[in-house]
């Protein structure tokens, strides 16, 4: 397998598995034929079109759900990261522990991710129900399966909030003497790292639930006999005046 083929195969993973089963071989052949001699990377134009095409096939429900998962992963991942840095009770009190040393762009990204993780669950739930409702006879099972990860996502947001504020909550649950020393490795929020990993698992589960086409889809079968082609092509040739 050439490096170009390997990279093209990797890019084709933008499409869902059910689509790749029918189309990946054919698309790969076209990609390789369309590439120039000695080319070892797919062109930027091809890469962009494959990613866009893959997102289009996966649909809005998957894209919105993954946006939610990414937002949750970034938010909890960052909370874990900042607890690995020295900070003080004053930092915890104003809720910006560690942020002061990070670039503004990072702070903005984290704020946006946190806002998205709170704003996206409802749209994701609704579009998921709309997307899965048409499946029969197991549609109710699928709808219930969709509600499961959604509730799990909320549980992760809640738990991340509790654990994210752990040092701040300390006095309320037993006084500062029961808390680990601020700024020491003992207060690294490993729980947040666990939640971050749980978000990724949630993303995989959601992808699995949505791993069927929204509508029955299949590369259309060959309907003609080879011998018929000469007489059929182009269709309407007699009256086609362009």
């Amino acid at each position: 397998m050439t490096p170009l083929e390997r990279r093209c195969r990797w890019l084709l993973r933008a499409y869902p598995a059910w689509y790749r089963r029918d189309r990946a071989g054919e698309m790969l052949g076209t990609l390789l034929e369309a590439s120039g001699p000695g080319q070892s990377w797919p062109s930027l134009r091809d890469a962009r079109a494959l990613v866009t095409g893959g997102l289009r096939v996966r649909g809005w429900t998957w894209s919105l759900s993954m946006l939610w998962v990414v937002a949750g992963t970034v938010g909890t991942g960052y909370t874990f990261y900042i607890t690995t840095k020295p900070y003080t009770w004053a930092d915890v009190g104003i809720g910006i522990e560690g942020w002061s040393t990070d670039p503004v762009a990072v702070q903005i990204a984290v704020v946006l991710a946190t806002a998205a993780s709170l704003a996206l669950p409802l749209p994701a739930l609704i579009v998921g129900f709309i997307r899965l409702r048409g499946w029969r006879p197991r549609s109710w099972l699928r709808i219930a399966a969709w509600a499961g990860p959604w509730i799990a996502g909320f549980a992760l947001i809640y738990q991340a909030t509790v654990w994210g504020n752990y040092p701040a909550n300390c006095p309320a649950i037993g006084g500062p003497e029961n808390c680990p020393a601020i700024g020491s490795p003992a207060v690294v929020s490993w729980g947040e790292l666990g939640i971050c990993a749980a978000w990724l698992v949630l993303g995989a589960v959601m992808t699995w639930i949505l791993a069927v086409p929204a509508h029955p889809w299949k590369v259309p079968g060959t309907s003609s006999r080879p011998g018929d082609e000469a007489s059929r092509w182009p269709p309407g040739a007699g009256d086609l005046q362009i």
Partner: protein
Amino acid sequence: MREPTYFVLASLLDGPLHGYAIIQRTAELSGGRVRLATGTLYTALDRLTAEGHVELVREEIVNGRVRRSYGLTPPGAGALRAEAARMAEAARLVTNRSRGLKAGGPTRKTSPA
């Protein structure tokens, strides 16, 4: 109908073509203006197949990979013809007026001084 769709359908006028041949033919017919990326081509083919404008006519194995050839259906040819007629009519509207412009320009009423 968008320009890439028009040229994809037009590329199939002479007979069924496979993916790469459609890309080449489309670029040729459009004078290099429409250069389809592979992802864009298959998105268009999926849509055109679902609409019944294009159909799969042949499947073969080349270098261990499936290669499919697609052809124009009668409704696809009809849609292409209708689009061509619409564009010809739109072009005629401008070219006829341009001729008038060359002949002496549009007549304009002038008010007496």
